[in-house]
């Protein structure tokens, strides 16, 4: 996926070749948005909750260094081993190091978007280790050798028949199986064996509590717990921004997280890990990987408030009609578009433009990140840093020239209308992207300005 990266417009065009499939993808995610709405509307104090969560996260960002020190202190006292990783490569080396030290060759993983960001699986496999993803959706994309397309619903882009085909090839179900019940049961049996035989389990972290040195992992499947409680070594990977100050703040975040993500009141399991099991090793790897740089960008640091609920993706009309893979990044959708340019402005210059700035995302965000305003601001930065298309640059300078002078503007406008009326094929052709699937507007006889001059006596 990383080699010759195509851009969002190119990938979306490919995605849109199958219109029926786009409708299916769009309707599925819109349905989840509607479930979110229903759930939010059942909580009269919903907007107050959002504001509270936003303020808590604002405080966290303003004092993150102290909170991290406090978290580390408490975690160490709890018997957890704390590691710090400046970047993805260091994170991967640390995880590998822990496994090597314990003579472990095989690991079971539960969902962690951070490890996707770090390409951990790839790294460990290159070192000769075996990693199995235990979230059903993650396991499916792992078998398909694809990255997840959505941070909460990793294989939302896959149809059940396609999943059945994968399971037929890799897990031995009869060809043509597509019943979700049967496929899930198959995964249950297959992964149960994995849980029982893996001495190491890696989980993500939804929230890390500075006050107590504990961390919380939320799942519906129970796979994070199955892995962690059966393994000798539990490794938890977290981004620095996962901190929340006090245990009681979990009340706010756990009420918002799953309702925003899928419309459920809470995940089946919200597990609080504070100390290792007697005889077990518990490690936490605290990762920067560009987050401290984002923290220094005044216009964009609020993106670090994100609790990875995915609500912005479900509501985004562009995401629903282009799919997560079109963003060619571990985190896709609106939040991905404001996080990624910080990591590599050249590679991700297209993402902030993959939006109409409709603003829906900002209004479903449980922590009130001003996503659509950040998208606008990233556009200014990307152009200033020189990553804009050169033809666009010339076009824009021409537009500026035309629109800064009333005389030039009126002449250009009149000329444009004349061409449209008398030489339509100059505009209605394959070089005009508008014209591909839309008719051009008709050219009126006179502009408003001309009508006004003629008809209004002043």
């Amino acid at each position, binding site marked *: 996926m990383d080699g010759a990266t195509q851009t969002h*417009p190119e990938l*979306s*065009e490919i995605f*849109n070749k199958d219109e029926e499939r786009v409708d299916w993808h*769009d309707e599925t995610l*819109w349905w989840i948005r509607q479930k979110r709405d229903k759930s*939010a*509307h059942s*909580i*009269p104090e919903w*907007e107050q909750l959002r504001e509270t969560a936003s303020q808590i996260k604002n405080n966290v960002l303003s004092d993150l260094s102290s909170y991290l020190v406090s978290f580390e202190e408490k975690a160490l006292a709890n018997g957890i081993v704390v590691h710090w990783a400046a970047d993805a490569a260091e994170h991967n080396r640390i995880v590998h190091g822990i496994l090597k030290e314990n003579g472990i060759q095989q690991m079971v993983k539960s969902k962690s978007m951070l490890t996707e960001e770090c390409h951990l699986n790839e790294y460990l496999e290159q070192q000769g280790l075996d990693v199995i993803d235990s979230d059903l959706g993650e396991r499916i994309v792992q078998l398909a050798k694809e990255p997840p397309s959505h941070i909460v619903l990793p294989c939302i882009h896959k149809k059940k028949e396609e999943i059945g085909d994968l399971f037929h090839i890799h897990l031995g179900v009869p060809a043509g199986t597509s019943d979700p019940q049967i496929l899930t049961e198959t995964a249950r049996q297959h992964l149960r064996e994995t849980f029982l035989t893996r001495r190491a389990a890696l989980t993500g972290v939804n929230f890390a509590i500075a006050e107590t040195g504990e961390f919380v992992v939320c799942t519906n499947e129970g796979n994070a717990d199955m892995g962690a409680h059966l393994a000798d070594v539990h490794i938890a990977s977290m981004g620095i921004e996962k901190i929340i100050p006090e245990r009681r703040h979990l009340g706010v975040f756990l009420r918002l997280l799953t309702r925003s993500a899928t419309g459920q009141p809470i995940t089946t399991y919200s597990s609080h890990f504070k100390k290792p099991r007697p005889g077990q090793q518990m490690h936490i790897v605290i990762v920067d990987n560009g987050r401290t740089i984002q923290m220094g960008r005044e216009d964009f640091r609020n993106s670090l408030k994100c609790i990875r609920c995915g609500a912005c993706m479900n*509501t985004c009309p*562009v995401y629903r*009609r282009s799919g997560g893979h079109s963003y060619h990044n571990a985190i896709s959708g609106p939040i991905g578009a404001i996080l990624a340019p910080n990591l590599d402005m050249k590679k991700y210059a297209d993402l902030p*433009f*993959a*939006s*109409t*700035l*409709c*603003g*829906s995302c900002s*209004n*479903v965000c449980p922590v009130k990140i001003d996503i659509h305003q950040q998208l*606008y601001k990233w*556009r*200014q*930065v*990307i*152009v200033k840093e020189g990553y*804009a298309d050169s033809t*666009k*640059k010339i076009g*824009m*300078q021409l*537009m*500026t020239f*035309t*629109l*800064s*002078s*009333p005389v030039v*503007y009126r002449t250009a*406008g009149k000329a*444009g*209308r004349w061409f449209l009326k008398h030489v339509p094929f100059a505009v209605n052709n394959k070089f005009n*992207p*508008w014209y*591909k*699937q*839309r*008719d051009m*507007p008709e*050219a*009126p006889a006179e*502009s*408003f*300005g001309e009508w*006004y001059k003629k008809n*209004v006596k002043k």
Partner: protein
Amino acid sequence: MRVGLFIPCYVDQFYPNAGIATYQLLRKLGVDVTYPTGQTCCGQPMANSGFEHLTKDCNNLFIDNFAEFDYIVSPSGSCTLHIKDHLHSEEAEDKATGIRHKIYELVEFLVDILKVKDLHARFPHKVGLHQSCHGQRGLFLTQMTELVAPYFSKPQQLLSQVEGLELIALSREDECCGFGGTFCVVEEAVSVKMGKDRVKDHLTHGAEYITGADMSCLMHMEGILKRENSGVKVLHIAEILNAE
């Protein structure tokens, strides 16, 4: 009260009727309205494409044309929002600030300033109302479905004063049409798909006309309607509110 009329560039060039209806409607309501002939554009196409730094001359031209008025009214939610959020000038920041506080989109001007209660308008047709995003989420013309908050709608309030008009329900009340400025050509495939889906929603519910406060959205949907050989027409809300 002197009102300066700000007509978006594409309305001026391609949809003058929306501008004419706006002018006539304001005159009907007794407003002293002038169209400064030296105006061009608000600069939004450049700014939204990342070229905000090129809009200085555009901004100053806007200030020159409009600073003198008590109110500035425009039949465009997105242009109004752009000026409100982004009009600045090194040479005349005071005037820029003044303008940002007195610029209104047409619907909000009619409802909040003129407090229009009876339009004496007639338009006996089935009409679909498109909630243009910038007007809705930026100017709060209509409550957004994302929020847990009481419903209100200024355009609907005005349309309810139009005799014979039947407002159709929609499956998705406030989904974006996909125009998005240069997005419409930079991300052509997704833009068109979004437009097609919006149009389908209106057609499925029996709209004869699709209206809204932004001609850009309507232009995009019209392009799709015409390509589909549909008899459904688009009309700026000013044209309906001005209809007799």
